[in-house]
């Protein structure tokens, strides 16, 4: 049993083009969401999203010792992603950066070098690159199939944020390796990688299926590459050249 405040703190927040009512268990959780809060909502809000206790249990299983507002903020990315799916929005584990009018995602399992790639790009091309979100951007699948990448409260340990929403350009999946190599990722490989990057709690069959349809929306329309890399500047230059070539060929 988790020991949290009895009173719930309810707010209306805006993520992407969607407004959601969220009830926080901890009084300080709202601080993480401050830029996205529109207003405080009425008491007894029946439609409010709040975190299920089962996710707190996961947090403790990961080796964390306390349940607090930081845990709630982190875990809410799962619950909120599931709610957003009803509106064709979702949260993905990726660094989202802005380059030449589009958003580009770098995705990989934790500690595989996403932040390093962004840092390198920012060092090499400081005037061309800016960050949209450092860890969990919100993606919106529009009616015409185009995808918008929005900022979110989950900016990662570096707190990277700043640039506004932009249309998706493409996705770079990372893999650590002994050489730098980039290649288009075949559907058989991208399907599982993209699916696994989308936040969900795996409790509801309908949501599990909805995540598949969102993954399909990405894969059918956007280029996805696999960058096997050493994490050095040469690998980031290779990434840059690949998206630049793609853009010039697909204008």
């Amino acid at each position: 049993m988790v020991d949290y405040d009895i009173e719930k703190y309810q707010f209306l927040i805006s993520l992407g083009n969607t407004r959601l009512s969220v009830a926080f268990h901890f009084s300080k959780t709202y601080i993480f969401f401050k830029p996205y809060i529109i207003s405080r909502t009425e008491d007894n809000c029946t439609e409010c999203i709040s975190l299920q206790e089962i996710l707190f249990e996961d947090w403790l299983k990961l080796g964390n010792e306390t349940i607090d507002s930081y845990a709630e903020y982190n875990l809410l990315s799962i619950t909120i992603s599931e709610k957003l799916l009803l509106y064709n929005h979702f949260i993905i584990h990726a660094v989202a950066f802005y380059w030449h009018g589009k958003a580009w995602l770098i995705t990989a399992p934790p500690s595989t070098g996403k932040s390093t790639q962004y840092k390198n790009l920012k060092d090499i091309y400081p005037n061309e690159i800016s960050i949209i979100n450092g860890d969990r951007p919100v993606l919106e699948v529009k009616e015409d199939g185009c995808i918008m990448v929005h900022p979110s409260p989950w900016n990662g340990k570096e707190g990277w944020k700043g640039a506004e929403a932009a249309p998706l350009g493409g996705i770079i999946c990372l893999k650590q390796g002994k050489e730098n190599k980039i290649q288009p990722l075949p559907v058989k490989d991208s399907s599982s990688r993209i699916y696994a990057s989308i936040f969900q709690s795996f409790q509801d069959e309908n949501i599990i299926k909805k995540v598949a349809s969102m993954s399909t929306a990405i894969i059918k329309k956007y280029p996805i590459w696999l960058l096997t890399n050493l994490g050095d500047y040469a690998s980031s230059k290779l990434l840059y050249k690949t998206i630049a070539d793609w853009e010039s060929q697909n204008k």
Partner: protein
Amino acid sequence: MTYKTREGVVLVKVADQPLLIASRIIWGKCPQLKRLPKGSDIYWTLLSKGIDENNIIQLISLLTHKPQELIKEYFDIFLDQLIKEGYLIKVENQNSAS
């Protein structure tokens, strides 16, 4: 012997690529995600409807115009792998037990 799909495993398709996804209640009993070879999801679908091994082989053979021996060879590999990973469960037939 018949085979049962484990309750809580969901078959999805991402850009026509079949994936098996384990829902939270069965985590620890099988991997969270498995990529199936394209086209083999038909086996999963038929198994989940409770159709037995021999009927599945006959049906696929009819649909694909391939000999039953060939289908059986492939199906056995499919079954072995998914049983090993925990997605499928072997069920003793009552007839064969008696």
